[in-house]
């Protein structure tokens, strides 16, 4: 997938001016937030489970090598194969190789963000395989030749009438006069079209929400059942998962499952939570004959032991973007790569470099809602700040910003100079703006005033008020 994160500002401007997108984004703000809050409210232990989940992941990450080895041993015992991939290129090659060995022509896919990360579809398609996305949202996005714009609701940027138009364009063997007015009919049509693909696929590829070290099990969590048909019907099942999906035991995964669906869609539990361990066994009437796991690093080992290690606790629920005012305004595509929203703003620079993704951690008001709702207590704003610091240290910020900050730092470090000068500036602006209470234009502040007025300062400065209160008056 081509990275457009460097042009985030332009992306964002276009997104805000796109009426279709803005109409679609309106659904994010109402639905997800209310549902999550209701589900969390119904479970008195919700916060205790969040703490417990955080601790489990911290322990696992601190011993990741040991748990990976234990996991691998169990998969092998159960008759599965584990393939290790250092980077995206290697993971793609492994998967292609498995498909070719199986003589595959048609590949079905359950929803996996890691496959987006390694740009798997175009790679397989260029080499002659037919790749079919089977999650309804992913299917819609695939027809439109777009990327998912949300990690759990890939087609959230698309409206119903657009989906109808797409279905009419692609499902040309169906009668053109059919009525697709109701969303139910669109769903039924997708079900019918994809059913045949499921039954004739040679390889099924899914992601994994969790990998269990105790048992060598991979877990997928879905609502549609497409992931299950993807992995049960073809001869070969490939699980594509990144290293940090490891969880020690069945008990540990039970903790994580209790916070995942509630944080994501506000369900008590997603419809299908499927534990897969190895290939078809003697006497089994169904299931894949081969079971492969591709374990992808792709930069994650480099995050361990750094200030970004906590990001590896992420269980991809999407709560951070569902609650993010920036995501609400611009949607997922503007972020320019696979992972949008606050988690993307932290993860993307780690995986593709802060030189390309430096805008993302800057696209935040630090309102803190993401951290508040994160089931894994990931300090997202703090980590965005770390990225800003790194960007500054590596001289990647624009010269004007660097000089501005240097100018500010000079005074900020010298309170004796800062206070009288700030006081003078405030009084001057206050006096000049007294009539209207705000400025439409200000010298050196065009970046602010081109979009909104600058309020004229009133009363005393924060520092002055603080000093006053501290002295007890």
């Amino acid at each position, binding site marked *: 997938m081509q990275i457009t994160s460097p042009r985030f500002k332009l992306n964002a401007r276009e997104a805000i001016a796109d009426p279709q997108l803005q109409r679609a984004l309106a659904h994010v703000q109402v639905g997800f937030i209310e549902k999550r809050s209701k589900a969390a409210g119904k479970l008195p232990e919700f916060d205790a489970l969040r703490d417990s989940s955080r601790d489990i992941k911290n322990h696992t990450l601190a011993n990741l090598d040991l748990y990976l080895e234990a996991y691998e041993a169990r998969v092998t015992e159960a008759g599965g194969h584990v393939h290790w991939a250092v980077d995206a290129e290697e993971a793609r090659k492994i998967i292609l190789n498995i498909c070719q060995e199986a003589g595959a022509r048609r590949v079905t896919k359950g929803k996996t963000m890691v496959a987006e990360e390694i740009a798997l579809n175009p790679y397989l398609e260029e080499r002659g395989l037919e790749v079919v996305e089977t999650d309804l*949202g992913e299917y819609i996005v695939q027809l439109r030749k777009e990327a998912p714009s949300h990690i759990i609701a890939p087609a959230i940027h698309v409206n119903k009438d657009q989906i109808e138009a797409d279905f009419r364009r692609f499902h040309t063997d169906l009668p053109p006069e059919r009525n697709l007015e109701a969303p139910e009919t669109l769903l039924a049509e997708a079900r019918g079209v994809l059913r045949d693909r499921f039954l004739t696929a040679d390889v099924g590829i899914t992601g994994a929400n969790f990998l269990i070290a105790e*048992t060598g099990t991979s877990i997928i969590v879905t609502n549609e059942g497409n992931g299950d048909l993807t992995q049960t019907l073809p001869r070969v099942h490939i699980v594509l998962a990144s290293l940090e999906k490891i969880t020690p035991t*069945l008990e540990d995964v039970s*903790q994580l499952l209790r916070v995942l669906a509630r944080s994501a869609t506000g369900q008590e539990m997603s419809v*299908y939570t499927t534990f897969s361990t190895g290939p078809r066994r003697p006497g089994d009437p*169904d299931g894949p004959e081969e079971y492969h796991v591709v374990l992808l690093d792709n930069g994650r080992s480099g995050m361990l032991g750094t200030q970004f290690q906590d990001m590896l606790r992420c269980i991809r629920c999407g709560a951070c973007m569902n609650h993010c005012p920036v995501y609400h305004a611009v949607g997922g595509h503007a972020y320019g790569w696979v992972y949008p929203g606050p988690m993307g703003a932290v993860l993307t620079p780690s995986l593709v470099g802060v030189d390309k993704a430096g805008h993302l951690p800057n696209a935040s008001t630090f309102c803190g809602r993401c951290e508040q709702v994160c089931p894994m207590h990931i300090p997202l704003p703090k980590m965005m700040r770390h990225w800003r610091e790194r960007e500054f240290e590596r001289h990647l910020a624009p010269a004007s910003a660097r000089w501005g900050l240097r100018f500010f730092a000079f005074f900020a470090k010298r309170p004796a100079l800062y206070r009288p000068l700030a006081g003078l500036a405030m009084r001057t602006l206050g006096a000049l703006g007294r009539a209207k209470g705000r400025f439409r234009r200000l010298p050196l502040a065009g970046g602010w005033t081109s979009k909104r007025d600058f309020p004229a300062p009133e009363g005393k400065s924060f520092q002055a008020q603080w000093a006053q209160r501290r002295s007890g008056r």
Partner: protein
Amino acid sequence: MTSSRETVLKAVRRSLQADSRDRAAGEAVEARLAEAPAGVVPARARRPHEEQIGLFIEMAEAVDATVERVDRTDAVPGRVADYLRSRNLAHSIVHGADAWIEELPWQTEPALERRQGRAMGDEQAGFSRAFGGIAESGTLVLTSGPDNPTTINFLPEYHIVAIRAEDIDGDYETVLARIRESYGKGRMPRLLNMITGPSRSADIQQTLLLGAHGPRRLHIIVVG
């Protein structure tokens, strides 16, 4: 040439400074895998068994499953037949080789056609027996194998699942501990399906619709 396995593990160890990690770390990992300590279990799961059954039914209905309860095993074939009739479905089901299913008095429903085996995709209704039920979220637990083939859980449009009342537990941990007992520590059935209601999607404008790729309807018969 170093394998990618070694490259990745080495990189992980370097970042974690695993060399300076004390032996206790390895022991803690071993102990966790061996003992599998339980975490936070919601209070709602801990109640007398009869109330757990009630909660299971309530939670399953809340996610759009239909549930009925019968006193005796003998009544199951009649209820299956009634369900098919009430939904105006073909009078036939596919089910696995589960001895419990086979021993049901199917002769009471001579008109009901039964086929034993996996689902192929053209069946309207499938019938399974659940390994367990989880009261806290109204979740069914099914295990793969010849007794209850996985394809029956996903291909037919209507999925009818029988569960013995004694197989319903309060929480995930209890059912998973039973799995551990049945299959052995560290082992699992090839597939364990936790199923919470019929399939659904909200991918079209965030509108929740039932019946995505899996069954459109899920009917649960609690026995006992």
